[in-house]
C-alpha cells in the first residue's frame, strides 16, 4: 500500500460556487485555491463558522470530507463537500449561498492507502461519510482494482449518490435502517456476506465509529486489510491542539495515542484500539 503520508494543506479564503440540496444533505461546491489540487481520497477540509469579515464567537473548526474535485466554472479544481446540518456550524454552512466566502483549510490528514497490486476492494460508507469513497473508487479502478460498494444510511434522504455509485462499482449493496431503499438493516448485518462474495483483500470504510469497528472486525475475520476513516470531534483539525486522541497500537505492538486529525483520519483498522475509543459502541 502506498501514499499514506500526510497531506500538505493550505489555508485560504474560499468562495461558494454552488449550493444544492439533495435529500437531507447540502452539496456545496467551493472555490478554495490549492485545496483541490492537493487532494487525495480520505483527506478532509476544515472550515470556520462565520464570514471572514466578522468577529467570530466559535473558534473550533468544522471538518468535512472532500467529496469530489472537479474543474468547474473556469476553476481547475473546485471542491465538493456534502453537509448534513446537525448543529450551529453545519446549519451555517447549509445556509451559505453562491458568492459567500468562508475560511477553508485543507486537504487535511492522511488519505486512504492505495494498493500497489490490482486487489479486490470493498468500500463501506454510511450517510454523508460515504463522500470520500467515490473518488477513492475512481483511483482504485485506475489501478484495476475491482470495487464493491456498500452504502448505508438511516433512510433514503441520507443515502449518498446511490446512482453514481453504480457507475463506479462492480457491485453495490444498499442498506437503510428504515428500509426506505435497499435492504432494511445495518451495514454490520451485510458485511460478512459482501466481503465473502467479493473475496475482499482490502476494505475501506468511512462512517460512524460503530460501523468502522464492525468493518475492522469483519476484515480481520476475512484476512483482509482494513482502512478506516475516523470521525472524532475535532477542534483545530490541524494537529495543533492534541484534542482528538485515538488509542492505537504501534507497529511495535506498543499502545500509543494518535491524533485523529493529523495521524488519521484514515488509520489501519487493526491498529485502532476500538474498545478504548470514545463513541466506539453506539
Amino acid at each position, binding site marked *: 500500500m502506498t501514499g499514506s503520508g500526510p497531506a500538505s494543506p493550505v489555508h485560504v479564503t474560499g468562495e461558494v460556487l454552488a449550493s444544492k440540496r439533495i435529500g437531507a444533505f447540502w452539496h456545496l461546491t467551493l472555490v478554495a485555491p490549492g485545496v483541490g489540487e492537493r487532494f487525495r481520497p480520505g483527506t478532509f477540509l476544515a472550515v470556520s463558522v462565520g464570514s471572514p469579515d466578522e468577529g*467570530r464567537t466559535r*473558534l*473550533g*473548526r468544522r471538518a468535512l470530507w472532500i467529496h469530489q474535485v472537479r474543474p468547474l466554472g473556469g476553476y481547475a479544481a473546485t471542491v465538493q463537500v456534502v453537509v448534513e446540518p446537525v448543529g450551529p456550524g453545519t446549519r451555517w454552512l447549509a445556509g451559505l449561498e453562491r458568492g459567500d466566502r468562508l475560511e477553508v483549510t485543507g486537504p487535511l490528514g492522511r488519505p486512504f492507502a492505495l494498493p500497489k497490486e490490482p486487489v479486490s476492494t470493498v468500500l463501506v460508507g454510511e450517510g454523508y461519510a460515504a463522500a470520500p469513497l467515490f473518488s477513492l473508487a475512481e483511483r482504485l479502478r485506475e489501478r484495476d482494482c475491482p470495487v464493491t460498494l456498500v452504502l448505508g444510511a438511516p433512510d433514503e434522504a441520507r443515502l449518498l449518490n446511490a446512482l453514481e455509485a453504480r457507475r463506479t462499482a462492480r457491485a453495490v449493496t444498499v442498506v437503510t435502517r428504515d428500509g426506505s431503499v435497499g435492504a432494511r438493516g445495518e451495514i454490520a448485518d451485510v458485511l460478512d456476506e459482501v466481503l465473502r462474495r467479493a473475496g475482499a483483500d482490502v476494505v475501506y470504510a468511512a462512517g460512524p465509529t460503530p460501523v468502522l469497528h464492525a468493518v475492522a472486525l469483519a476484515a480481520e475475520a476475512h484476512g483482509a486489510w482494513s482502512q478506516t476513516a475516523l470521525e472524532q470531534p475535532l477542534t483545530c483539525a490541524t494537529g495543533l491542539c*492534541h*484534542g482528538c*486522541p485515538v488509542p492505537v497500537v504501534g507497529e511495535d505492538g506498543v499502545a500509543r495515542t494518535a491524533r485523529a486529525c493529523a495521524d488519521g483520519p484514515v488509520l489501519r483498522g487493526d491498529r485502532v484500539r476500538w474498545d478504548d475509543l470514545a463513541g466506539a459502541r453506539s
Partner: protein
Amino acid sequence: MTVLAGLRLASPVVVAAGCGGTGRELAAYGALEALGAFTTRTITLDSRRGGPVPRLLETPSGLLHATGLPNPGVDGFLATELPWLLQQRARVVVSVAARSLGELAELARRLGTAPGVTAVEVNLSPPDTGPEPELMMAREPFQVGAAVAAVERELPRGVPVLAKLRPDAVRVAEAARAAVESGAQGLVVGQALPAAMPDGRAAGLSGPAVGPLALRCLTEVLGAVDVPVVAGGGVATVADVRTRLALGAVAVQVGAALLHDPTTAARLVAALDPDATSEETPS
C-alpha cells in the same frame, strides 16, 4: 529586533505552549524560522497520555481545554521532536512542568545539556493537568520562587529561564517579583485561566475571550518588575499585538488563535515585519 532575556528574536511573535502541535503541523502554514520562537507543549519528565475526551470545548470567543498535557516525556522530546525543530532553524523554548522541585531540576538538567534549546519556560500553573499525576501548581509567591530557582540553577549561561505566571490580576505582581528574585530572566503573562466545563470538570480558558484579563495582568506585571515580559492571552490580531507592545511587552505569545486559523502566527509575523511594505490586518 526583539531582544528577550538576551536572546535576539526574528520577530516579537512567539507560538504559545501547547498550541503549535509538534511544530511539523504548524510548519505547513509558514516557516518556523521566521517566528520569534516556538514554545513546545509542556514537557514532563515521564511521558503523559493526556486526559479523556472531550478535551476541548468551544465557548463564546474562547476555547476550554483539559488536555492533561500529553507529551512524549523529555527523552522522547529530545530524541524526536527537538532535532526536527532545530533542523527548521526554529528558536525553541521548551515549556516544562513537574510533580516536584526535584523533577523540575532534573528536567532542566537534561534540557540544559541538550544542544539547541533556546530557553526554558516554567509552566507554573497548568490549569488542566487531568487524571494523571498531579503537577505542581505555584499558588504562593514562595512556590513561584522555588520552582524558578530549581530550574535556573541547572541551566547553563545563555539558556535563560522564563516564568509563565498564573494570570490572577490581584496577585500576579507578587508572583512576578518572586520569579525575578529567583532568577527568571523574562516573564510570560497569560497562562490559560482556571475555568470549568459545563459538567464542572476543571479546564483552562483561552482565546480572545480572555484577552482583557491577560492585559490587566500585563499592566500589573509591567508595573512591578523590570525584566522583559512576553504578553500572552487572547492575541489574535495585529491590533492585539500593537496594544501589548505599546504597553511595554517585548513580545507576544499566540495560542488559541492558531487553533482557529493556523496561519495566524505567520500572518502576524509578516504584518509586524518592519521591512514589510503593506500591513494587512489578519482577523
